[in-house]
């Protein structure tokens, strides 16, 4: 997934200590309000408590490919998801859904994620996939690289299809990387000399951990790349006992 607009600047909510979001309680409330049965079941399945050590948290890394960058008018064309925990990335359980967008597929995005008109024309509408998606996400903490974009697109797509948005906790490898690099931020002098803060693009983050270069803008590869990055970040900089609440949004 591409997220050019958000890469250069820092995000205000990544700074400093923050209040831990109580997702289990949020799920209780959302569950009681949900009208769509699949969505109600999703919330009803619950979520781990914020003090669960990361090493015990079931996660699912996801990536979306879209027709553009604006969640209000662009559409999802492909979703990939693969389960992981700190012990193993279950690449063997990778799922991918090709989705027929309600808007036109433009030439640029075709070249980007290699999905063709033909594939999309034969694909189902996201509405037909909602239950399947929700079952894969249920009881898992979602891992993404750059949560704002993924979250906005999913909310929008759900609202358009089932008339209500979807909310769930996300671990964001980009936010983790921003926190790590901020700790090693160059001093004033270095900044005056023109040193720029390190890039937070997925490929650049991975390179810092010695992770191999994968082809970009391919949902399954990006989801795998994101999962590997999370394991590397935890191995290098975070304790496996870190409570999940400190990382989720």
């Amino acid at each position: 997934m591409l997220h050019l607009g958000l890469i250069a600047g820092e995000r205000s909510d990544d700074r400093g200590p923050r209040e831990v979001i109580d997702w289990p309680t949020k799920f209780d409330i959302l569950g009681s309000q949900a009208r769509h049965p699949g969505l109600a079941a999703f919330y009803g399945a619950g979520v781990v408590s914020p003090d669960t050590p990361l090493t015990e948290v079931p996660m699912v890394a996801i990536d979306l490919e879209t027709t553009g960058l604006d969640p209000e008018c662009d559409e999802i064309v492909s979703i990939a998801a693969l389960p992981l925990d700190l012990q193993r990335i279950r690449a063997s359980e990778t799922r991918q859904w090709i989705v027929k967008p309600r808007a036109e597929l433009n030439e640029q995005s075709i070249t980007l994620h290699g999905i063709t008109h033909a594939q999309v024309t034969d694909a189902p509408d996201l509405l037909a996939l909602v239950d399947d998606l929700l079952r894969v996400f249920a009881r898992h903490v979602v891992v993404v690289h750059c949560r704002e974009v993924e979250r906005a697109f999913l909310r929008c797509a759900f609202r358009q299809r089932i008339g209500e948005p979807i909310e769930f906790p996300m671990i964001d490898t980009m936010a983790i990387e921003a926190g790590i690099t901020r700790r090693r931020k160059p001093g004033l002098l270095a900044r005056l000399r023109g040193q720029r803060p390190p890039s937070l693009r997925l490929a650049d983050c991975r390179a810092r951990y010695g992770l191999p270069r994968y082809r970009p803008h391919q949902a399954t590869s990006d989801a795998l790349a994101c999962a590997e990055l999370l394991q590397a970040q935890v191995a290098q900089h975070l304790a496996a006992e870190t409570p999940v609440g400190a990382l989720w949004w």
Partner: protein
Amino acid sequence: MQIEQLEILDFLRLHPPCSELPEEALRRVAAATDVRYFKAGTQILAFGQAAEFWHIVRSGAVEIFRRSGTLYNQLTEGGHFGEFGLLRNKRVRFPAKALEDTLLYLVPEAVFTELFETVEQFAEWVEVEDRSRLRQVVSRHEGASPLMTATVANLVGRPTVVLDAGASATEAARHMCEHGVSSLLLTRAATPADERPKVVGIVTDRDLRSRLLASGRPGSTPVSEIMSGNLISVQHNQLVFEAMLSMLRHHVQHLPVMRGGQPVGVITQSDIIHYESRNSLFVVGNILRQTSVDDLAAMLPDVRACFTRMVAEDANSRMIGSAMSVIGRSFKQRLLELAEAELGPPPVGYCLLALGSMARQEQTIVTDQDNALILADDFDPRLHDAYFERLARFVCDGLARCGYEYCKGGVMATNRQWRRPLRQWEACFSEWIERPTPQSLLDSNIFFDLDSVAGTGEWAATLREHVAGKAKGNAQFLACMARNALLRTAPLGFFKEFVVESDGQHTKGINIKRRGTAPLADLIRVHALAVGSTARNSFDRLNDVIDAGILPQGRGPDLHDALEFIAMVRIRHQAADLAAGREADNSIEPEALSDFERRSLRDAFQILANAQKFLKYRYQPGRAG
């Protein structure tokens, strides 16, 4: 829809053994593979834990250990581990640790086992017994050699020279002069734009002479009128032998070599004669015909060509080793004859000894001269030594000019110490064997490989019998010899562009003789002495040792394979040096080794290391033989 990860599939496709899998099996593996990241320094597998996966290194580096904690291997991208435990009792046998930040691919046990049982090449590759894998490598090579006889393509030295058949005889002659060739292929294009014109004939020096000049025809005669139109040719993959028969049968001296309907060159009778002259028999014959040291020294290119030819024809190390030793002996024999012609007949009888690799018939192209003289027992130094001093000087200086470097340790007949009567030699060997010290045996090690080159050959045999009789059962002597045989060890293997030592240190390159063939020969010599063998060649000695039944089951053939493989790597490396115009040597740079060579060398080094452990155990001081 559940799908395989393209990144995983593409990676597996590039690295053996998965690269050898059929497409459908490869996709099955890729779809079943999971992933995990390990930070440098973290434990990946602990001894005895359940073995659930076969591991492939996607990026980074991993160290594998023995149970004892000693290093077993270092792996980089594409390396794999964990097969041992999966194939045995499903418990981890070799612990593993991340040497660098590492990304691993995990293939579930069930998928691995299925591949192992159904895909033969896969099973062969991951077969955990290093020794049986090397056996396959060596026997495959042995099996291949009789089939790999030289083809005419080896003789084609220059690109084909062609001319349009419409040219005149003068133009043809001029074209031949310009290119310095004695024949010309004539072509005719079907259309003006024809890229591959058809060869319609050949014209040679002889045709110009007999069909043009002798017939009094003018130079303007079309070359097509004097050419031979009925073209006799050979295919590029025919044997040299067949080309020779074809020339004899058709009374032609030039044969176009064709490949896919197009000429790739022309071979001549002199090409064949030249090629055959690199046969070791011809080289030996030529050496014995030379009449001066200068002429002998001029044989060096032929000797090298003979060596590279044998390597190219896939001869095994034993064939090459004996051929090079015979050539070395011939130089010595001819030099002795030339010396006697200059110095007069010897005052008393003598025997020139070859020592070390020449005596073992394991010479390569990089070798120094190790020799000594046995003199008749009526030798009187005051009367006779000046003659033998000059004789030895003549031979050793001559050898140095013929490419055999002086021995750095001074083990040469020019050294007074190594010119002695037979009786003194016997006393000398008795002293070494009966009162051994590690130092005295280190210095005298080379004398335990001896062979006669010229003169009274029985004396060399007498000495060998003397040594064999005294050494066998002499525990103290054998213990000293064994101790010395452990001084040089093999490295553990290779890692990126480095050699990995057994303590995990990395070095730039290795001397394959010092770290491979020499310690193997040393080790085999100790066993041979212990069983009273009088054989000289390491393979012959090994057979005697195997027959004596002192090695654990299967270890003898393993040693044979290890010696053969390491020796061939050394020989091929030297041939490659010569082909590239470099000075040949014994040092091997890891980057020059193929994956296959690295892997098989590692197996061979492992066999050497295990054999050294056994040697140490078997010949402990004080232990009864």
